[in-house]
């Protein structure tokens, strides 16, 4: 009997603790300090003129959050529960807008925006969660057809392999529907979840419509077939292709003997991945028999000519020593300068960064 009472007490305690913890974690993480604690929006949340004024403010100061309010994770104004949250915790949001949360990068606007402007922008943010994006007017719902649609599609494959989807359409009585247009879609995530229309197929005498599709997508998707108001789906897992489908090319490919020779840091081949402009390396485009040699030879010949010319001056024999004059210093200095400059220029001919992604395939 006593053990039962203890058990009951513990159970109640755990439940109370869970609820309290839930409440605690559901609250905004910090207590709103005065003078912000308990402040309320002086405007009605659904006042469209206030929302319009707030939109002007938003576009001036808040576009880090994106035009629809959903660009920054952790503060998504476009989600449908945001209007409820902001109504409930309006003092918290007013506090954040006014004082900011500089440790996470949110500046405070109490000096650049008036109280009125800050409430206007919060009213506009309330409306963001309420707003549905405009699309072309929805077509009228198709009449119920009472048909049944079966879909046969492979469960997994590799992108780039041709697939066949077979749809079988039967009417309420179980007999095949002939000549009906079945639409095929793929349900995929690409910035939004949507149905990507693939095309249509017409059913034959047996009510079977066949659709061929070579996917370029990869990942877990769903194949969807639709006839009027009836839809069926079938999951499909596609592996990524070995070679990407889209091969950009921007040059005229000249015949070369061998691949480019490259000596340099590996980051030079990682276009932009390091967050820096590409650094250079020593390159021979087209392998050892590169056209670059022609240029290098021309430039080297030129600087070697300069060298030879000054060398003639260097070699001019001193006839008799004139005082303590050192007649070879100037030519020697010039020779060294020529050598250094010539070598730097030749190094510059070989040393170059990769900037085009198609050359690094």
């Amino acid at each position, binding site marked *: 009997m006593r053990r039962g009472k203890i058990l009951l007490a513990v159970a109640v305690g755990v439940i109370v603790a869970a609820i309290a913890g839930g409440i605690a974690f559901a609250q905004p993480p910090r207590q709103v300090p005065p003078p912000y604690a308990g402040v309320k929006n002086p405007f009605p949340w659904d006042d469209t003129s206030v929302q319009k004024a707030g939109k002007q403010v938003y*576009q001036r100061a808040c*576009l880090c959050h994106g*035009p629809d309010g959903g660009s920054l994770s952790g503060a998504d104004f476009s989600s449908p529960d945001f209007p409820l949250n902001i109504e409930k915790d309006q003092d918290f949001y007013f506090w954040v807008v006014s004082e900011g949360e500089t440790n996470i990068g949110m500046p405070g606007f109490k000096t650049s925006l008036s109280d009125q402007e800050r409430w206007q922008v919060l009213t506009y943010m309330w409306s963001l969660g309420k707003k549905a994006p405009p699309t072309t007017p929805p077509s009228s719902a198709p009449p119920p057809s009472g048909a049944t649609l079966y879909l046969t599609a492979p469960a997994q494959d590799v992108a780039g392999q041709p697939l066949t989807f077979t749809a079988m359409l039967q009417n309420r009585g179980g007999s095949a529907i002939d000549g009906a247009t079945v639409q095929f879609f793929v349900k995929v995530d690409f910035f939004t*979840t949507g149905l990507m*229309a693939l095309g249509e197929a017409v059913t034959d005498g047996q009510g079977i419509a066949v659709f061929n599709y070579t996917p370029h997508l990869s990942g877990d998707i769903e194949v969807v077939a639709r006839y009027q108001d009836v839809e069926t789906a079938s999951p499909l897992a596609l592996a990524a292709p070995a070679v990407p489908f889209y091969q*950009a090319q921007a040059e005229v490919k000249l015949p070369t003997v061998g691949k480019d020779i490259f000596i340099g840091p590996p980051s030079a081949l990682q276009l932009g991945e390091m967050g820096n402009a590409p650094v250079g390396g020593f390159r021979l485009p087209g392998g050892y028999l590169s056209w670059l040699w022609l240029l290098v030879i021309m430039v080297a010949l030129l600087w070697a000519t300069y060298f030879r010319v000054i060398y003639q001056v260097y070699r001019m*024999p001193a006839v008799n020593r004139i005082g303590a004059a050192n007649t070879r210093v100037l030519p020697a200095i010039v020779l060294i300068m020529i050598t250094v400059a010539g070598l730097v220029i030749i190094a510059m001919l070989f040393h170059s960064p990769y900037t085009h992604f198609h050359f690094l395939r």
Partner: protein
Amino acid sequence: MARSPRKPDKIYNLQNGMTRREFITGAAGAAGALTLLSVPLDRLLNPVKPAQIPAEMANTDEKVRAWCMIIDLARCEGCVTENTPPQCTIACLGGHFAPKGQQWIEVYTAELPGGGTFFMPTPCYQCENAPCVNVCPVAATYQDKTGVVLIDHRRCIGCRFCMAACPYQRRFFNWGTPELPPEAAFAQYSPIYPVPAVKGTVIKCMFCLHFLRMGKLPYCVSGCPMKALYMGDLNEDIASNGVEVVKLSRFLDEREAYRYKEYLGTKPRVYYLPGYGQTFGRKPDDPRKLLPVVWPWGGEGYNRRVGIWPWGKSPK
């Protein structure tokens, strides 16, 4: 060679400089050392820094992407019905704190053959054969492996050769220190999110690559109220404007897509679907013009005049 036979060789060398042998060895040694030094010197001058891109912008997308944009001109009506300046431009400049005067995506009013007009939003076309990347002398502008043309503002020397080379005039120069709101200082600079703008460098649209990597749409695409801009992946043959998803190849073919000034051979990554805003009821001879773009900051922008004794008077 007239050489006094009584003087020892050493003194002769001292007074007449080096011998030929010494010179050649010296020069060769210096040259060799310099060449050997150049590789580690290269690393010293541009050390491979750890990824400077902020963690949330790091590329976590395992898929190989080939970003492109499709602009449905049948849906673009210049935001004249919204009675605002073009929203794509406003969203972009607001999100990037673009200096006053720079419209990285600019909506032009173009002419139809019959005398009517249509509106043409024009971001950077991120050309595959980009003339700007071809001419940059210091590799400050380069292509990401998804095809987006980026600029590293720590490398750009401001020669503006890329601006002369761009046949679409989509690159802008920071002619002075940009006047930006204080919020701009919170941003961490990286080539894919070039905020704040750097004085003396070239800047342009980067397809909001920082958003694309996070799985979000660019400012212009999500900011368009008519959902006229689509973001696409040529590799996966897919495109989306944030509301609907389409098969890219089919979309382009069925809507007769074209690229602007394609004959120049730049191979742009932005496709236009012909139209004049007719999806939302606009007629080609609609007289309403685009509203002028307003920047919430910037004073006179880069049009300030610098007088002969400007110290302290004009803002820098």
